[in-house]
């Protein structure tokens, strides 16, 4: 021991305290060569000048790490530490070593560890600040927090998921130290949102519809399914349950691989939970709990769970596989009744034996009650009360003094697809605890809500090719009103144009049935033509074979949404005339609205502008059900320009309304005078790419988008967003004339 101590060459008193313990562990875990390397590494860490913590953490952690990964993982770990030491991030060494043991427990292989180290080092090099570009001088703000969270993160995420999560944080908060710390210490909302997205296993959100269909199809039941989070509550593991408000299920289920190697998918685990709950809802009637002890209640719950599962399996025999794979199968001799409370163990074995016809438990009491259980159920459905009586008999028969011991055997006794049975019990007496006094608490009046709550939309980040979840907040409202007469005046000014348009409109109006004559194949014989051709035939000439006709309906069925960009730049004077772009837009929109009203197509107008991602405003000017009347005109007259253009979000929100319209064709027109931009987006491509993405999404929804750009320099970006579906109007003074014509050409 003394030689080892000399080799360690340290004078930290804290190390001396734990030295012997560490060495005993190391001696059993490590080979002599490994031991040597261990002491050498510890010595180096002691001489780093970072205090005692790195050395202490390493000495305690390494033997168990080496046990999992093998000794030869040491060099790569030491390389990482040296890299940290050389950069300004020396303060991260201690948390790195402190969490190394739990992290390796999750990773299980050197390869995985190497990935983890790569992520860490990459993170470090990308967030370490520098002044004037070349010297790394400021330590990475988020690294220590990240390392502290690492064990938790790896419990939730696979390494690939971890990489994505880290990547997201670096990209979005790389230049913002406080926010970066929030993100990596899991304090910020989007940090949690991205975590949730990257989790391994079957996410509830992905299978919600399937589960709903499952309930309806197989069980003729349906209820609101509410997920609860399993990620952040480590101590009090929540359990599925149901109440008046719905069925609560976890937000994620990992695939389950039983000891026999049977693979149960996350979806099937959800189904098992739902089937169990359906069983309760069908067959369990609540019992009065007051007179029973907790042990008795536990046994009754277990018997009842087994009863409904037996009935469920009667309905669908295939469920037996799922239940048996998910149900733990405790070994009979695993619990020592002399020293431990074996109650849970006994009940778990019994529960297993109820479900598994080929169990190999020898206990006579157990076998007796399994037989009685099946006998009771053999007669029919039985009932909660009858099975409770059986459970009480079992408790009376098998009670042991050791059941009261504080040391309770827990291993293999939790059946995780079962709910907490809260619906099984009725309590007659109110409890005399403090809650009784809480009834009279006053409900504080909340502030009046102004306007509608915000809607959140994701935004596309082209660099990572992912969505930023719930990134943008959009507030919608009715556009304030002005003076409707202004618009009438504008329309009067364009009287001549209106007449011209009216002629075009008349041609466009739908005529429902169109007869198509002279068809070789058609639905009906066209007698006139047929007789003519028959005469030709008789006269020896070549008859015309096109003697049929058919009908075609030409109904117009288009819903239109006109989206106006109301950003600041609209206030500028248009080139070549003395009106502002805003005024010209008003004129153009009025004429267009008038024209569409004449055509009778469903039509809505909305405007948008934005002031950072937290405040995108969407203003309704005309709804689909409103007519082109004074109210709409008044809103249009009050149009004002301000702020910036976050186009993608506005597109998504407008699509939300247009999508709800029932029409064969859906057309969204966007009238804008500049490229998408916002004050909080430094990268100018970002919002362009997002808008492009939004256009693609709309395309999937069957919405045709078309952009009318008033920006003479638009060619540089507009085709990136809208493909070929745009027109640039250079001569803005002719906009009032061009817009309605354009619309008609589009919808001809």
């Amino acid at each position: 021991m003394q030689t080892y101590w000399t080799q360690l060459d340290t004078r930290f008193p804290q190390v001396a305290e734990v030295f012997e313990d560490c060495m005993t562990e190391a001696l059993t875990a490590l080979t002599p060569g490994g031991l040597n390397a261990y002491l050498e590494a510890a010595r180096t860490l002691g001489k780093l000048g970072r205090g005692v913590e790195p050395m202490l953490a390493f000495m305690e952690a390494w033997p168990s790490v080496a046990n999992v990964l093998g000794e030869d993982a040491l060099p790569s770990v030491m390389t990482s530490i040296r890299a940290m030491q050389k950069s300004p991030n020396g303060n991260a060494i201690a948390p790195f070593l402190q969490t190394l043991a739990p992290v390796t427990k999750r990773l299980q292989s050197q390869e995985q560890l190497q990935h983890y180290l790569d992520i860490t080092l990459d993170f470090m090099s990308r967030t370490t600040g520098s002044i004037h570009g070349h010297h790394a001088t400021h330590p990475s703000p988020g690294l220590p927090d990240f390392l502290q969270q690492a064990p938790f993160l790896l419990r939730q995420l696979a390494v690939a998921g971890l990489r994505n999560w880290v990547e997201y944080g670096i990209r979005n908060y790389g230049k913002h130290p406080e926010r970066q710390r929030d993100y990596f210490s899991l304090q910020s909302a989007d940090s949690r949102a991205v975590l949730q997205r990257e989790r391994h296993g079957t996410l509830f959100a992905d299978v919600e519809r399937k589960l709903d269909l499952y309930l309806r199809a197989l069980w003729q039941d349906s209820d609101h399914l509410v997920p609860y989070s399993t990620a952040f509550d480590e101590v009090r593991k929540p359990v599925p349950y149901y109440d008046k408000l719905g069925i609560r299920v976890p937000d994620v289920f990992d695939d389950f691989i039983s000891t026999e190697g049977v693979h149960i998918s996350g979806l099937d685990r959800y189904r098992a939970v739902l089937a169990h709950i359906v069983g309760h809802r069908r067959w369990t009637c609540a019992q009065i709990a007051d007179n029973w002890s907790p042990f008795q209640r536990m046994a009754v719950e277990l018997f009842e769970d087994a009863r409904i599962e037996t009935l469920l399996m009667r309905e669908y025999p295939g469920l037996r596989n799922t239940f048996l794979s998910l149900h733990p199968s405790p070994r009979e001799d695993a619990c020592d009744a002399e020293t431990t409370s074996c109650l849970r163990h006994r009940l778990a074995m019994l529960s297993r034996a109820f479900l598994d016809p080929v169990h190999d438990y020898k206990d006579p009491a157990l076998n007796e009650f399994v037989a009685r259980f099946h006998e009771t159920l053999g007669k029919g459905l039985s009932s909660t009360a009858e099975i409770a009586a059986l459970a009480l008999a079992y408790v009376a028969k098998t009670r042991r003094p050791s059941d009261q011991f504080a040391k309770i055997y827990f291993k293999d006794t939790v059946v995780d697809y079962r709910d907490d049975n809260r619906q099984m019990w009725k309590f007659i007496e109110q409890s005399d605890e403090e809650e009784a006094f809480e009834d009279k608490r006053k409900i504080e009046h909340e502030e009046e809500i102004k306007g509608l709550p915000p809607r959140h939309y994701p935004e596309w980040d082209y660099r990572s090719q992912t969505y930023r979840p719930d990134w943008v907040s959009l507030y919608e409202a009715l556009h304030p009103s002005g003076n409707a007469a202004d618009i009438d005046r504008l329309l009067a000014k364009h009287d001549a144009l209106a007449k011209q348009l009216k002629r075009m409109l008349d041609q466009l109006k739908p005529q429902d049935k169109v007869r198509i004559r002279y068809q070789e194949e058609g639905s009906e014989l066209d007698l006139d033509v047929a007789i003519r051709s028959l005469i030709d035939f008789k006269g020896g000439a070549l008859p015309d074979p096109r003697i049929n006709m058919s009908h075609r309906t030409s109904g117009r069925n288009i819903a239109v949404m006109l989206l106006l960009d109301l950003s600041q730049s609209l206030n500028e004077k248009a080139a070549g005339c003395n009106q502002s772009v805003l005024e010209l837009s008003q004129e153009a929109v009025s004429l267009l609205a008038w024209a569409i009203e004449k055509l009778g197509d469903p039509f809505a107008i909305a405007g948008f502008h934005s002031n950072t991602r937290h405040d995108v405003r969407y203003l309704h000017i005309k709804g689909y059900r409103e007519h082109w009347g004074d109210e709409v005109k008044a809103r249009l007259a009050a149009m004002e320009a301000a702020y910036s253009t976050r186009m993608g979000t506005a597109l998504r929100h407008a699509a939300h309304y247009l999508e709800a319209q029932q029409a064969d064709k859906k057309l969204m027109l966007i009238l804008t005078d500049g490229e998408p931009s916002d004050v909080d987006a430094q990268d100018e491509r970002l919002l362009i790419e997002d808008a492009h993405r939004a256009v693609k999404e709309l395309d999937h929804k069957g919405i045709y988008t078309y952009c009318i750009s008033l920006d003479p320099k638009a060619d540089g970006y507009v085709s990136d967003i809208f493909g070929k579906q745009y027109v640039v109007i250079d001569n803005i003074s002719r906009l009032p004339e061009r817009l309605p014509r354009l619309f008609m050409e589009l919808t001809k």
Partner: protein
Amino acid sequence: MTNKGQYKVQKEPYYQAQGKEVALYEAAYRNRLPVMVKGPTGCGKSRFVEYMAWKLGKPLITVACNEDMTASDLVGRYLLETNGTRWLDGPLTTAARMGAICYLDEIVEARQDTTVVIHPLTDHRRTLPLDKKGELIEAHPDFQLVISYNPGYQSLMKDLKQSTKQRFTAFDFDYPNADLETVILARETGLDEATAGKLVKIGQSARNLKSHGLDEGISTRLLVYAATLIKDGVEPRDACRMALVRPITDDADIRETLDHAIDATFI
């Protein structure tokens, strides 16, 4: 004259009555009242009509209606020949002349202006005017008109005119209850009742999804297909997937749910 014998139903079709429909139909036929049979697809409408034709010993002329069908497809049309034109009777005219039961299947599929031509045959007149030919046909005393349609489509465009509806007596059919359907499957295909019962159970789970993503549940006809496949030695799960699930939906979620129902039923 067309050969009457070819329209006779030769062999007794298997039909399991769900209620009093057989006796009621016989009464309607005695009085030559037109009959309408409503119900979801594959619940046995056509089989019922076939069975009644056999039981009454009358010829049966079936017309499957479609959107492109015109009045002349029912009544008849002129054909051109080398030395002029020739009139060819349509199925409705043929039935009226020979005294057959004329069965217009899925009548709503035909356009509404087409269906109007049956009106004079359905009331006290019992005549069919052939305006193109200038002839008025008196219906044969044995002639009866039967139409069927599926009200499940719930489309405004595909409904019968009131003036058409109110010329018929009507039967409302639905899928038989579980026990009866099991018997039908077993009898029709010779499958054992236990397996047939399982098939019926899967069918019912799909019927629960009607209007939650499925337009129609699994029909008795599809269950018969599945039973036939199983009887032929196909593994039950494969047979169910092929005959019950794949035909009715393209929705991946529903397909997965029904596949699960199959796995949970056949172990």
